[in-house]
């Protein structure tokens, strides 16, 4: 059963996505606007990729505050901090936490960069019923003039009904084909 996270019809949910050149004060500026509007910050993921900072944030707003008003105020971030801002009202079912997954896995891939690493690995996973929840990738600079750049891909996913041994075998085959190191290991996520 999906768990209902104190969803309140009187407090509509919104998803804010914003990204722009990194500098000190972006989170504070966004949080200040939401605070002044009487909004509650719920779940968020914010990170910096190279010189860009990105915000992915769920918040609730007072029912009396219109979407137009929220947009108007949040769009100030475009001028003040050079962010691209998007605001999406969430449907009630989108605000629910997914059921706790039975099995999580971590897939790590690294080796010389080449086109198709992310595509081939994630296609294999999706064909085998793995639902990806987190992805981090990094391309390293080439070590020497003739040296290849390196690529690192780490992802976490829900295994659902996938057969771990079979999936590991398929990933090993793909790793050999792509010339990269691939590993799949279960993630222990027990509440203690």
């Amino acid at each position: 059963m999906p768990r209902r996270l104190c969803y309140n019809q009187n407090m509509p949910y919104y998803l804010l996505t914003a990204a722009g050149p990194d500098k000190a004060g972006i989170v504070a500026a966004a949080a200040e606007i939401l605070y002044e509007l009487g909004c509650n910050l719920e779940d968020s993921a914010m990170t910096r990729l190279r010189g860009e900072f990105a915000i992915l944030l769920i918040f609730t707003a007072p029912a009396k505050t219109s979407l137009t008003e929220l947009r108007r105020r949040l769009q100030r971030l475009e001028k003040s901090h050079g962010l691209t801002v998007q605001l999406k009202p969430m449907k009630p079912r989108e605000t629910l936490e997914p059921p706790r997954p039975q099995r999580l896995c971590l897939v790590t891939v690294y080796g010389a960069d080449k086109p198709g690493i992310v595509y081939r690995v994630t296609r294999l996973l999706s064909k085998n019923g793995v639902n990806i929840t987190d992805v981090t990738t990094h391309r390293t600079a080439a070590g020497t003039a003739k040296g290849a750049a390196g690529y690192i891909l780490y992802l976490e996913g829900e295994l659902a009904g996938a057969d771990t041994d079979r999936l590991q075998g398929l990933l090993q085959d793909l790793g050999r084909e792509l010339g990269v190191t691939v590993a799949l290991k279960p993630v222990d996520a027990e509440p203690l």
Partner: protein
Amino acid sequence: MPVAAHRIILFPDPLLKQPSRPVDRADAAAAQLLTDLTDTLHRFPGVGLAAPQIGVLQRAVVVDITRSTRREKKPPRHHGLIALLNPRLLRREGELVFREGCLSVPDFLGNVRRAAWIEVEGMNARGETVKLDTDGFEAVALQHEMDHLDGVLFLDRVENVKTDLFRRKNYAPRPPASTPAATPEAG
């Protein structure tokens, strides 16, 4: 014979995935390898280096955590420069998670779980058996370098995407492989 020192092999060079051979005896070549490793370490902002990182597939490591400039306080307990041939883990206790980097994997960090205390045996440049035990940062550095001898990178030991991975916070342009980078890291 050791190749010329002062160049660090960078990921994705497949050499880093190769297991290293034991050093047969502490002869002049082995002593030179430890000297090359130490010299190279001193030219880079790292606290440790393993022979594969300078292109030599032999079991030799150097660690010197006093080279770390990042820590506010020097750790209370350390051995200064540790230079070992054929290092072997004898005992391990406890666990700690440390955010590691690697001179061979620039611009990337990962949280790795290691033993908090280790006892290691190896051979010094004079061929004498050396046994030492250590904990904390120095233990982490030694384990990281010994992993290199088995072709294992810290990338193999990260356990969780959500909390164990952190991109390097400083994206300053990386100098060429032959010159020191800007921040200290394990080798």
